[in-house]
């Protein structure tokens, strides 16, 4: 199946005086699963609508396989779109919904039938041909919308928060199903979501948007392991933030003296820091190990004595709040017998330098220039 690459160049959108998308530059490779992620109002849906031809950019251009499509009406772009509310045609049967785009292409009736049959099979809705949308559940409607969008072999598939209307359990199932569906099709896919975990688990690359501006573009790992700004770190759900100053740099590790008095060692990735530079550091809750304070540890850095302030039992996961000095530290641990601690017990907590993220204090200002 043919797939296409998409490029956005200086894409900008204004509503009156309000700039909702500001100079977005990104190249999406052919066959990629690419996510646009950001809080509501960050402009991600507007970008998707501009790609689809449903909104007109104020400036900038959209290139599909190197060809400019910025001014083309939606029907000439050859893209597929699934809306958040699915937008299934309520007056048409499942069959006619999926066949809608195929019939417009003047294909033979038998070709249409084969194609619709094949697609309904793929999305697990064989036998639903004669049903009408109101007879379908949310998950079924969503799969009809998906089958309808991919039926005419679109060059790029655009998905606007397709999972957000489903309940949590179904959403988890659909997430994995969607990824394997896309891998089968190999169609370039652009996925809009406000859910960072969806974006991380589905995508080849993720673009993080904040107020219409690109905060960071990278693989899920790059985004999560080394967020480029405080916004990204916060959006990706990083906690245990401390302020500090770099006291020494050694290869790819930095010594940071925290304002609360501790000295920590953190791995720095692809970024340069200077001694004396003020920074923010994060300790990932899942990177922290907890052990009884009497236990011996080989670790010489990032090892602290403290006590368990609070511990909540969440099935597979245990969430501890530990107190080190006067600081509270969130810890996520797998629920095993050696990770269970009662509240008030004295513990030793430690983490590898790689479990930390360091961000220069002025990084946000740099991004907003």
């Amino acid at each position, binding site marked *: 199946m043919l797939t296409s690459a998409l490029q956005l160049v200086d894409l900008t959108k204004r509503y009156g005086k309000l700039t909702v998308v500001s100079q977005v530059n990104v190249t999406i490779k052919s066959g990629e699963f690419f996510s646009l992620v950001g809080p509501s109002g960050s402009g991600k849906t507007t970008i998707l609508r501009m790609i*689809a*031809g*449903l909104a007109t950019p104020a400036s900038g251009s959209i290139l599909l396989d190197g060809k400019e499509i910025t001014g083309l*009406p*939606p*029907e000439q*772009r050859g*893209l*597929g*779109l699934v*809306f958040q*509310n699915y*937008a299934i*045609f*309520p*007056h048409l049967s499942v069959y006619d919904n999926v066949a*809608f*785009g195929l019939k*417009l*292409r003047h294909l033979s009736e038998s070709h249409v039938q084969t194609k619709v049959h094949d697609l309904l099979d793929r999305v697990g809705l064989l036998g639903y041909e004669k049903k*009408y*949308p*109101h007879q379908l559940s949310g998950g079924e409607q969503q799969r009809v919308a998906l089958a*309808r*969008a991919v039926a*005419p072999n679109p060059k790029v598939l655009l998905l606007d928060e397709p999972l957000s209307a489903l309940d949590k359990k179904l959403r988890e199932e659909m997430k994995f199903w969607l990824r394997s569906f896309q891998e089968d099709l190999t169609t370039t896919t652009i996925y809009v979501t406000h859910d960072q975990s969806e974006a991380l688990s589905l995508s080849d690359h993720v673009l993080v948007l904040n107020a219409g501006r690109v905060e960071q573009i990278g693989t899920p790992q790059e985004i999560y392991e080394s967020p480029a700004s405080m916004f990204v770190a916060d959006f990706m759900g990083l906690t245990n933030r401390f302020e500090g100053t770099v006291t020494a740099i050694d290869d790819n590790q930095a010594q940071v003296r925290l304002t609360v008095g501790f000295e920590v060692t953190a791995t720095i990735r692809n970024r340069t820091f200077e001694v004396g530079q003020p920074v923010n550091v994060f300790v990932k809750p899942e990177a922290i190990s907890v052990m009884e304070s009497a236990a011996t540890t080989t670790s010489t850095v990032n090892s602290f004595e403290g006590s368990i302030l609070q511990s909540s039992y969440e099935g597979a996961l245990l969430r501890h709040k530990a107190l080190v000095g006067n600081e509270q530290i969130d810890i996520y641990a797998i629920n095993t017998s050696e990770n269970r601690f009662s509240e008030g017990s004295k513990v030793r907590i430690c983490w590898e330098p790689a479990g930390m993220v360091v961000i220069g204090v002025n990084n946000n200002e740099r991004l907003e220039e």
Partner: protein
Amino acid sequence: MIRMLRENRTVVLALPVLVFFTFFFIVPIFTLLALAFNPKELGSIAIKPVLTLENFKLFFSYPVYRQSLINSLWLTSAATAICLLIGYPVAYMIARTASKRVQAFLVILVFSSMQIDLTVRIFGYLTILGDNGLINGSLIRAGVISRPLPLMYNSFGVIVGLVNLSLPFLILPLIGIIESISPDLLNVARLLGCNRWKGFMKVELPLSVPGIITGVLFAFAISMSSYLIPVLLGGWGRAVLPVYVYQQISNQGLWQRGAAFAIVLLLTNLMVVFALIRYYSRVYTKRMLAV
């Protein structure tokens, strides 16, 4: 007593309407029905226990009465069709107006045409459509025509009047239905390969059929029963059925005949209404539009 009232709250709340409806709608209709089957008697409106079909026989045996029913049907159908042709684009435009303020203003504009008394509106038409009216006067002065065009006292005049009368009733229900069709449906159709027009024809038009049916029902019923417009803009040459109902009662004083004519009018109207509802339910109940 109070407990009983509380338990039957719906009934109690509906009681005033029920009483009103019974006295001012059901009773008159049945009086009319009974009267239509009584032999004619000058000036009498008392119901007698004598049944006859003579009033109906009379109606169908005189060509002038039969013709009035045909006039009613075709003038109303033509007016309703023109209403739909004019009204649908207007309703569509109002329903798809992005600014809620502009939209409210346009809806009020549609309503405002209903605010002016019908007689006043008709006299307005006389000054526009008459031989010395705005249109003929200007055209003659401009030298386009030498004799006035027949714009009034014919079918044209009646249709113009009926369209004016029933247009708002067709537009208003349509606005609501078209507005309830998600614009995303059209967007999806366009991405699948429809141009603007094709998307409208394949998605928005079929989904607005319930609104079309409702609007047509309103427009048809209102035009069909109109008396003033055919009389003032049509003249006797285009007499419609309501004109003869009025004539039988007011001029002749024969309530029984007037009642029979009115029943014919009512039944014709009901037949059209049921035909439309049947068509609607055949097409739509199976699908149960859940937009």
